[in-house]
């Protein structure tokens, strides 16, 4: 029996190695099919993650507002811990105070500039973001009102909150009591939104100007997560950090979900169509490759081979081809997906090791099926007719 098996493998390897040109054709067809399968499936699975990261350019999708008066740094840290560093793209706490410039009220925001860059990637800054103390970034409208340019200096004054001031801006004459600080304009902010009416400074500067320790009014978060997870995060933060009320920015989250769903559906559909077509291509190629060997099948039958043993031999060949093509294609497909990811998203694709056996299994299956049909029809052929010459 061992000798028989040995001969079986000897025949298969002989057929694979010595009929090189035909086998290369078949192998090529199968590996292309497998490459498309593994490549597209990888992209399909990775698209929401990669595209989700792109959608973060819409900026913050979660806002932390104070449940009480204000939010402390500890509260923000606690909230950030709940989300975890892998999903948290950016976090920017904001403190808003009304300051006066040339005796006119202007809203001043103090924030962590690095965080703001990440939560508001769409901000267009003419000049530079403030980096050191005494530097300030002003909105486009503010710049126009005060006729300020990058590099110019400005002074902000702050009236410590007194009873009268809180009642309604009647303290204009009491400038004597005010704190003031000089700033250099480093950048002018263009957003097309309300932000153009604000000035932005660093947190320590605000502390110095107001003379009060930093407490935040609002905190913007950019979180990379599907909308379901996102609302789960929001609920968890609201629950576990009593000082914070977490809300989703619906405009961003809802729209992101819609677009991502459509996009993934698109890639899925395209994958299915492409895959169906390549499978048919693989099948036709295998059919052609097998059909070519009708005469050989006839000979084997004349020599006394049963249909079952002929099917076994040819299938053995097909399966070896399928496995080899699947392996090759899976690797090529991964490389393709990686290339796409690098080109489109500038980031590496997630390696999915399970895709390798799946691709190989799929290509063995498709190749097997593709071989089975022509082999079956070939074994039905009368050996006498085939051998008599076409």
């Amino acid at each position, binding site marked *: 029996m061992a000798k028989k098996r040995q001969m079986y493998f000897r025949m298969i390897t002989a057929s694979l190695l010595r009929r090189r040109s035909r086998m290369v054709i078949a192998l090529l*067809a199968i590996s292309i099919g497998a490459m498309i399968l593994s490549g597209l499936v990888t992209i399909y699975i990775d698209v929401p993650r990669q595209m989700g990261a792109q959608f973060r350019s819409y900026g913050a999708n979660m806002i932390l507002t104070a449940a009480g008066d204000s939010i402390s740094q500890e509260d923000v840290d606690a909230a950030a811990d709940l989300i975890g560093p892998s999903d948290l793209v950016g976090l920017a706490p904001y403190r808003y105070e009304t300051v006066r410039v040339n005796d006119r009220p202007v809203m001043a925001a103090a924030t962590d500039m690095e965080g703001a860059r990440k939560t508001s990637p*769409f901000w267009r800054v003419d000049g530079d973001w403030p980096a050191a103390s005494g530097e300030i970034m002003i909105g486009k*409208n503010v710049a126009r009102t005060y006729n300020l340019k990058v590099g110019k200096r400005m002074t902000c004054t702050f009236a410590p909150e007194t009873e009268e001031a809180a009642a309604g801006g009647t303290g204009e004459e009491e400038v004597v009591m005010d704190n003031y600080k000089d700033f250099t304009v480093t950048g002018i902010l263009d957003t097309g939104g309300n932000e153009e009416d604000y000035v932005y400074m660093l947190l320590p500067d605000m502390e110095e100007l107001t003379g009060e320790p930093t407490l935040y009014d609002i905190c913007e978060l950019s979180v990379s997560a599907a909308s379901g997870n996102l609302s789960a995060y929001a609920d968890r933060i609201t629950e576990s950090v009593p000082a914070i009320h977490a809300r989703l920015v619906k*405009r961003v989250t*809802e729209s992101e979900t819609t677009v991502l769903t*459509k996009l993934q559906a*698109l890639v899925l559909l395209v994958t299915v169509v492409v895959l169906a*077509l390549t499978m048919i291509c693989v099948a036709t*190629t295998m059919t052609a490759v097998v059909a070519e060997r009708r005469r050989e099948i006839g000979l084997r039958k004349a020599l006394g081979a049963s249909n079952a043993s002929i099917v076994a031999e040819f299938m053995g060949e097909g399966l070896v081809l399928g496995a080899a093509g699947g392996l090759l294609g899976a690797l090529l497909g991964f490389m393709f997906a990686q290339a796409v990811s690098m080109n489109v998203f500038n980031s590496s694709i997630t390696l999915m090791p399970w895709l390798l056996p799946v691709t190989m299994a799929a290509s063995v299956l498709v190749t097997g099926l593709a071989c089975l049909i022509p082999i079956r029809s070939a074994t039905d052929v009368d050996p006498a007719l085939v051998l008599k010459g076409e």
Partner: protein
Amino acid sequence: MMMIAFTIALGASLATAMLSVMMDVGDKINQELKAYGANITVVPKDTSVVSELYDIGDENITDSYLKEDELGKIKTIFWTFNIVDYAPFLRTRAALESGDEVTVCGTWFNHHMDLPTGEELDAGVMSLRSWWDITEGDWPDEQAADSLEIALVGSQVAEKEGISAGDTLHVTGPAGEASLTVAGVFDAGGDEDDQIYVPLDTAQALGDLEGKVDSIEVSALTTPDNELAEKAARDPGSLSVSQYETWYCTAYASSICYQIEEVITDSVASPVRQVADSEGQILEKTQLLMILITFLSMIGAALGICNLVTASVMERSQEIGLMKAIGAHNGAITGLVLSEILCTAVIGGIGGFFAGIGFAQIIGRTVFGSAVALRPMVIPLVAVLVVIVTLIGCVPAIRMLLNLRPTEVLHGR
């Protein structure tokens, strides 16, 4: 030959479908991104610095206005077809019965317009604010009979004042008062939750601001900005004539803004960076992704066709050997094989092209709920691809045929 025709048809249909989808995906995704709301805001030239969001004073929020009767002109600009939606806003303060002051915002809900071009357009916040969640009741219908006495109440206001859908709301503005039926309560997840939305005319009556609006939000299909657009955005005057033409005739956010400013008196239109920039970025990525996927499937289809052509020509080695034996020249054989296969390719290609259009429509309908536009560009592209791929597929086969020695073939190797 049937099999070759079939495979070529498959390849061609794949190419057609992928190319059509690829070329249209920009528009489709652009449409989807409109869910993010307006990407252009139009405000009067001298808007005060005072913000609306954290309003500092109680004085009226803006002191200059745009004219309501000019709103229709937005649909007359060069890029009119790219204007998907827009709505005017007029904010005023009004007191509720409880004495609390709220911002009442007049706008269009589903304003119906008959355009001079004969087109019809339903514009308003109903589509512009697609992310609003109507928690109670329904969107107000401007076309209904009592369309002026309706309101859509923000969830924060509703909660605070205990308002629910169907209630009657009495508001007193600076110049008038109105009794409104609450059509619904919305949750926007933003500042709008503190406001009450009413039809534009109602807000104008409340604030004695007939014919005035304080801002317009426009949702337009735009092309992602490039260097030219950025240069133009800073100062259109700095462009050369040809650059200006290019810029003006491309749907950049900045050129659409510029065109809007041309038709609306004393206005400043500016792109909402959050929406405009991100849209551009996502659009670009999606298109690139589709291009690469298309590229992959093309390679797949091409190699599939090549393979099959090679395999099936090799199958005919005996016939060709016979032809050689009876005196056919290499040229004649090559010509015969090529013309046969090209004929097959043309038939398969035409069949595949139509099948591909079908595929593209299926994809369009399933994913975006609308048909994929057929670009004439696709036809020559697919034709050239099919011919080239088929010819390349023939090369190894023909080389083999030419090296064939008739004796070997005829003696049954």
